């Protein structure tokens, strides 16, 4: 049903630390790997070994350059995936009820057997979080690894989204952002976490942590200008120049 739940019991989501993401794309690769075999149709590619390969991914890592008047320029790696918004515009536009937001944990999912592949949800999402599967012609999106986080066949340490498990720097965190005492909520509070495009009114659940302030080079006093050397060395310099 495409009505959004008034409230959800939990607000499961990710917190992504832009300070320490190194842009290795391990989260992208592990996401693609996990979602090619678990929930729903396998996440497909088109022309994978041809001249113009492309495929559906649920997570993409961009790199941005940030320059300012008074600080050093910074290169910030920026993972982008579904933010599991509280006011998810992708859900309400769905004509079939395939897109839905779960009342129990707030995860936004696509019931693929109901999806007609019209693509309207991908248009409605400001964040580009939904991609059409090139083989199955149904809409794919981040499931927050719903087939891992509740999966009792996995060891407890693996019951978190594949991208979080794969991140080698610990830049990705998973938890309940509706619970103010949870580790992720405290992290967001401590590090001044923010929403992407809050002006779009989507109320994202996922939060991003800003890069910490960088060290700045202290302004060292300029060196004294090197003048014409005098004495023996000066004579030597002039003599050699004349040769």
């Amino acid at each position: 049903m495409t009505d959004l739940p008034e409230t959800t019991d939990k607000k499961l989501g990710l917190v992504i630390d832009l300070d320490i993401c190194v842009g290795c794309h391990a989260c992208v690769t592990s996401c693609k790997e996990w979602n090619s075999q678990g929930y729903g149709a396998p996440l497909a590619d088109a022309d994978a070994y041809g001249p113009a390969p492309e495929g559906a991914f649920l997570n993409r890592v961009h790199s941005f350059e940030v320059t300012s008047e008074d600080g050093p320029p910074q290169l910030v790696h920026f993972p982008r995936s579904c933010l599991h918004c509280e006011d998810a515009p992708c859900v309400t536009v769905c004509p079939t009820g395939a897109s839905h937001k779960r009342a129990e944990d707030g995860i936004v999912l696509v019931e693929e057997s109901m999806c007609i592949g019209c693509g309207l949800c991908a248009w409605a999402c400001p964040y580009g979080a939904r991609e059409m599967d090139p083989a199955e012609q149904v809409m794919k999106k981040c499931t927050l690894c719903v087939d891992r986080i509740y999966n009792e066949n996995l060891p407890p340490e693996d019951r978190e989204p594949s991208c979080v498990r794969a991140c080698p720097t610990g830049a990705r965190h998973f938890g309940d952002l509706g619970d103010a005492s949870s580790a992720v909520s405290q992290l967001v509070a401590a590090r001044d976490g923010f929403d992407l495009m809050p002006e779009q009114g989507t109320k994202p659940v996922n939060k991003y942590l800003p890069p910490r302030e960088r060290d700045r080079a202290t302004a060292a006093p300029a060196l004294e200008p090197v003048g014409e050397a005098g004495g023996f060395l000066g004579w030597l310099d002039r003599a050699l120049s004349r040769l």
Partner: protein
Amino acid sequence: MHPAGSLIIFTVLSGLGFGLLAFLGAGVVLPLGWEAFVWFAAGYALAGGGLLASVFHLGHPERALLAFTQWRTSWLSREAVLAVAALGMMAPYAAGSVFFAQPLPVFGAIAAVLCLATVIATSMIYATIRAVPRWHHWTTPAVFLAAALAGGALLAGQLRLAGGLFAVLAVALALHWQAGDRRWRDAESTPGSATGLGRIGRVRLFERPHTGANYITREMVHVVGRRHSAKLRLIALVGGAVLPAMLLALMPASLLAAGAALGLHLVGILAARWLFFAEAEHVVGLYYGRAAA
């Protein structure tokens, strides 16, 4: 946004069809027998044909019936429900006119309202997408409705009325472009807000996440052909609305004048609809190097 040919043709033809059926249903013309058959058949072919084309455009047309279920939140679902209701309500009225020389005005009037509601629902699919600032404005339904009414009046043979409605369409188009240009320029979303890094400084894309295209870039970061937009706007405005309005106002009412106006309008409105998609920028482009205007 990617200007898909099927969507352009579907919205133009179904708009014309529902416009024509609205005038027939409202009883502005009261054809009977064979004459009625031709008019209703044209209306059904344009409106229904467009709908059918859009169904086959889907990734999974076999599940299309599900699209009637989510009318409480989805304008696309509302469009489907309204379209079927309009065509269904029109059927007894059309049958009465064609076979029994006895139009049933209550059915006709309800169907006429449903026809216009369908056109509005089509336009609201676009107008409610906040992520496309150019569409998210009242001029989007205004243009769709004016185009359907003007084209419908022309097809229904109401030439003087159509002339006036074409003038309204010209104004609606001009307002839509003016508002649209301003909306992207003034849009709150910037690379800084999209990444949240605007608080540190000026944000510029350094590297895309992938070297090739993907669904997002093909569908929503379409940048082809915008350089011709000024010329196409002229064609859309003059051909689609101004010339038909002048033709119908100044020339004596004749089949020739109507035919010329229809031909010009079709060329112009196709150009306008192409621009509607091609000029519309989606905020996701901000993640792919589109700077704020």
